């Protein structure tokens, strides 16, 4: 899709003027929020680097921040960014990159406005780190695909209207080559969402059972058999989150630890002091590393440090919250509530220390285990030989599972 009504060099000033004009026409305090958001999309001020007609103006990527800030300052309604993090962060760029023109028009507007929440149906009980080993099948039946399988770790599925799905369309092809990528209607018959209770007691994620779910072929993204490449593109967008703005000192799990230390001098011991200071230094080092990575990315050098930052933050979250429990002593033996329920999307820093200790165990698993990320660093950064594997050229159906 090309746009004709976008000035070739749309700058920050032009955008500021457009925002101002838009706000003059649509007073946030009197316009109905969903109406406001739809109009903002139509005006190309949703994601300004998207093409005209799809919520953008073909502007440079870096200009979005100022536009968002101007809307926020004016008290404009939000588009549910935390609830629709998968939709905005991962589904949208994939739809834009691999979708047809009619798919763009069908899904992007209601995605951006937050009217439709999206979820991601990739991981399976048998396919975690090895995503390409997934077993959910999609069998062609005329203009439709019939899908059967089980997905897991699906956040937001209980809120979602649409899901992005990778399924196996050719079990006799090698694992990476037999996959296709679909958009599934989460309200379609045969889609069942069940909360997946986790060790904190809550059900933050879901299992999604797909039983003879029919997906029209026009909900396929990319070619049949191209699913792995499309999914890689989706996941690539997962890892762009770092950078932008100064990270505060003592952010992350060291914050409540240091606060507890300052507030409870009676709990101080030399041994705990030493451990806390070590974690403080490591956290500050990790912060500066993330800052430096952000600067590299801003300078157009998209270094591979991101994997290292994720490994480090996972470890520090775990060690800091564990030490905080020791510092709490007897209080560290208590827990707020293990009752099964759906958690709010909220700031971890406000949760109980014991809850954080448990929740942070997942930090080194979700979004790439620390072990897989070490492989990534070793192989892609240091250039060491890849792990021996025998699963790349064998038909998927013949692999050990």
């Amino acid at each position: 899709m090309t746009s004709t009504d976008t000035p070739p060099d749309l700058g920050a000033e032009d955008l500021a003027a457009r925002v101002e004009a838009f706000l003059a026409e649509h007073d946030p305090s009197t316009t109905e929020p969903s109406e406001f958001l739809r109009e903002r999309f139509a005006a190309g001020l949703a994601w300004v680097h998207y093409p005209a007609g799809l919520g953008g103006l073909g502007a440079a990527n870096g200009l979005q921040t100022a536009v968002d800030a101007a809307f926020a300052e004016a008290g404009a309604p939000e588009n549910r960014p935390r609830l629709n993090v998968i939709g905005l962060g991962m589904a949208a760029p994939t739809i834009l990159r691999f979708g047809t023109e009619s798919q763009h028009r069908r899904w992007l507007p209601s995605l951006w406005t937050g009217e439709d929440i999206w979820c991601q149906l990739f991981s399976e009980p048998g396919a975690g780190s090895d995503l390409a080993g997934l077993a959910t099948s999609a069998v062609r039946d005329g203009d439709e695909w019939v899908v059967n399988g089980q997905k897991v770790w699906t956040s937001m599925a209980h809120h979602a209207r649409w899901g992005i799905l990778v399924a196996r369309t050719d079990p006799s092809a090698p694992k990476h080559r037999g996959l296709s990528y679909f958009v599934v209607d989460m309200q379609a018959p045969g889609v069942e969402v069940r909360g997946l209770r986790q060790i904190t007691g809550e059900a933050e994620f879901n299992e999604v059972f797909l039983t003879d779910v029919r997906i029209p072929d026009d909900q396929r993204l990319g070619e049949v058999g191209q699913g792995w490449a499309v999914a890689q593109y989706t996941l690539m967008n997962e890892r762009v989150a770092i950078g932008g703005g100064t990270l505060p000192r003592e952010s992350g799990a060291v914050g409540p630890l240091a606060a507890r230390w300052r507030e409870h001098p009676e709990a101080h011991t030399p041994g705990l002091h030493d451990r806390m200071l070590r974690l403080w230094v490591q956290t500050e080092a990790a912060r500066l590393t993330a800052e430096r990575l952000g600067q590299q990315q801003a300078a157009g050098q998209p270094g591979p440090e991101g994997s290292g930052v994720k490994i480090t933050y996972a470890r520090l979250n775990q060690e800091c919250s564990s030490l905080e429990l020791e510092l709490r002593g007897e209080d560290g033996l208590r827990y707020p509530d293990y009752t099964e329920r759906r958690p709010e999307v909220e700031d971890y820093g406000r949760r109980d220390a014991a809850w954080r200790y448990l929740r942070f165990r997942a930090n080194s698993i979700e979004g790439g285990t620390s072990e897989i990320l070490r492989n990534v660093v070793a192989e892609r950064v240091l250039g060491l030989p890849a792990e021996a594997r025998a699963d790349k050229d064998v038909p998927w159906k013949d692999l050990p599972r």
Partner: protein
Amino acid sequence: MSAAAPTPSTPETGDLLYSDVEEDLRASVRALVEKQAPWDVVLARTDTEEPVDTDLWKRLTQEIGVAGLAVPEERGGAGASWREVAVVAEELGRAVAPVPFLGTVVATALLLGTGEDELLAAVAAGERTAAVAVGATRGPGRPVPVTVERQGGGDLLQGTVTAVIDAVTADVLLVPVSGTEIAVVEAGVDGGGDGVTRTTAESLDMTRRLTDVTFDGAPARIVAGADVEHALRIGAAVLASEQLGLAERCLADTVAYLRERHQFGRALASYQALKHRLADLWVAITQARATARYAARCAADGSPDLPVAAAVAAAHGSEVALLAAEDSLQLHGGIGFTWEHPAHLFLKRARAEALLLGSADHHRAVLAELVDLPA
């Protein structure tokens, strides 16, 4: 701290192996626990209002006699020793069995010093359940938060003790009121006796829930001859064996899972980074076994080295059990993070145990005094 301080002398090591009798005892306990309290049963119980498996406890005490092992025969026990107690602790730790064994160990150690033979015999027989009302994190050497009011008709107890181990189903509470005296308080069942209020706390460790106990003029019998520090030390020594059992279970479960789970066309167990991690864990566990056995041996023989042995076993055991539980969850990946997998039962137990009866940090500080390595 003189300039020519001698190297500490080396106490006799004693027998660190398991005797045939101990192995038989282990087999009995394991068979019963595996039958009556496999992990899914233990997990299901945590969502109920009855966190303690009183039926299992009854069978452990009455069929196997686990509560009387360290009690002499002439005082109503089995006349074994703390060594055998430690073996039972290993098995119960391996199963995260929700029974009041640890509390009973400390209570028994306390009663052994007193003349309360009737109560001791009843506890040893599993007819009564006693808990020692001290805060769960309390290592040897911390103050006692209750006061005794001497009244005409008897003594009344006043005060609150929070986070008591194994008091959920205890019908008698032993409350240290000085280094050598305890108050014996009838606690009743299901909530409390006269002047006693018990509240079961929502606890990090779901399989060993703690109790806050308030005494508001509770009638008490003051008993002399109790060595509170010694009893807590025995508790710490036995806890190290429980941690050993837990760590062994975590390693075994993880090895089994990694052998079975395939990713990228290979069993996870074939990846060298994971192999080395498990090897390191195995090495740490062999050390936890040696230190726990030595502490149990010192407890059994009344060795003067018990304070050192218990501190070493507790400091080391806490860290090994936590490492094992954390590694186990991590290496199980996503499944280990779910409620329906047992990994979290062990993680929560291990994380809590690392604070129970003194943290590793506390035990190292104790050790610094004992072996003349002052701060």
